[in-house]
């Protein structure tokens, strides 16, 4: 899996890593989808654009992940795949209780412990989600 769940007493702390930006964004989509519906199959039926927002790459990635949580909570939109990067576009479908398990409701992506690193080998980000 392109993400790891790390120890945190109350919430969900996770790390995503990838060789390039598109893969990093896809890893975030995989993480959020897994936290929300587990292994339930999710189809790419609809697309949402997530316009980049933020002064640097770290902030833009933070706000991308935060927008995924908003789409889940406000629209029931479960992300499946990153289909574009300029601007980031995400395909997925609406949550369907008949086909999707309900694993977690994610309240928010916190700024506590947020780390974003870019190195020769690629990208790595650590995040804490409030549940």
């Amino acid at each position, binding site marked *: 899996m392109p993400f790891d769940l790390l120890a945190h*007493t109350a*919430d969900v702390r996770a790390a995503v890593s990838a060789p390039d930006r598109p893969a990093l964004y896809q890893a975030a989509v995989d993480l959020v989808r897994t936290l929300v519906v587990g292994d339930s199959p999710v189809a790419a039926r609809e697309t949402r654009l997530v316009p980049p927002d933020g002064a640097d790459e770290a902030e833009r990635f933070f706000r991308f992940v935060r927008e995924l949580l*908003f789409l889940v909570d406000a629209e029931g939109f479960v992300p499946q795949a990153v289909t574009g990067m300029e601007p980031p576009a995400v395909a997925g479908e609406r949550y369907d209780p008949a086909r*999707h398990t*309900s694993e977690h409701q994610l309240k928010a992506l*916190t*700024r506590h412990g947020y780390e974003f690193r870019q190195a020769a080998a690629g990208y790595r980000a650590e995040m804490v989600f409030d549940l």
Partner: protein
Amino acid sequence: MKGRTAPRVEPIDAWRWRLPRHGDMRTDGLVFANGAMMEELEGDEALTQVANVAHLPGIVGPSIAMPDIHWGYGFPIGGVAAFDPDGGVISPGGVGYDINCGVRLLATPLHIEEVRPKLAALMDRLFESVPSGLGAGRPDLRLTPAELDDVMVRGAAWAVARGLGVEDDLASIEAGGTLAEADPAQVSARARQRGRDQLGTLGSGNHFIEVQVVAGRDDEAAADVMGLGPGTVTVMIHSGSRGLGHQVCDDHLDVMLAASRRYGIELPDPQLCCAPLGSPEAERYWGAMNAAANFAFANRQAMTHAARRALAAVFGPRAADGSRLVYDVAHNIAKRETHAVRGVERALCVHRKGATRAFPPGHPELRPRYRDLGQPVLIPGDMGRASYVLLGTAGAFAETWGSCCHGAGRRLSRRAAKRAAAGRDVAAELARAGVLVRAASRATVDEEIPEAYKDVQDVVDVVHGAGIGRKVAQLRPVGVLKG
């Protein structure tokens, strides 16, 4: 993930530990815990977070942590801090994403002996009546924009006016279920979008509705006033402001990050971003936070109504009509309160992040029912053991800005809890122990196994021993509804 200060504590007595001021801390930390709890806390991020809060400008008295302390984000869960209106700050991280997450307790006229045979039917009815988990909504409570504004202004009073409760309920809610300084104009369109269809829904994670039985009474006279006779069945509801509150926090954290830079406030953790009390940023957050808090009061009121309907459906109208609200407390909130500081009364902004207000007998904010007794303090435990009803004390008012613990406190991460639950059928185990579980998510049940939490008995023993809470009654779960 470390702050700038390395936590080191020294014992004060059997229940108190001092985290001495060092580095850029402006004050000491004060942690309530017994020796065993402190051993478990050693090296934990939660103590670093106690120290981090002590860095904030204008903090008055120590950075306080209750015995249910655990690692949060920004403030520790179980954290209490008061700030001077002159030079102090307000921090959304000191309130949390789930603004006015809280607990309410309903005492029914039913005895456990008459409930046991129909408990499964009651749990099924509750599960149908109170939506939980992803995509949950109440078709009967979809709000127009004007109605949502009204909810944010009137809180539980809106719900009662809508027929979701009785006037008497309002007398047993912190602040009467309505915070007067709400300003819906400070709540964004995105927050409204998230909250619009979520009134009357439970959420997930550690939120729950429990059917419980009064299993022990430490203070029989006080328990009688609260309607908590031996064997009485109670309903406890734990939930908050749902997506509306989460979005209010997110929106204003962005504002506060910029404000912290503008006002030159150095932060050991960005989640502690804040603005000076009285500043435009602080006032806007204040209005939005109170609006979200009122949404939470209305949310718990709507679920109370659903619980009464479920009781009526299974046990007849007497069960609903005779169910009386014991109390409703917020445990994620900031309040403007008056407290004595070195003998002088001062207005302060008290942040409670996973901590419960615990005002003493005689406090003018208490309604007549509890004026002579003190404020009820509701302490949920875990699915398998117990919850507690306490009372606020003069000790709490003098030492912790009138605050007490808010729960048992997690001791295992969700990942560790899931590992511990692997290969087990937790719901079946609980059923064998006499606790029926209904849940939207098996993952949540596994992550919420009893051993994921400290023993609430130990936690309430600490606050009782330290004199910041007084034990009244123990409630044991017989049915649990989880998101």
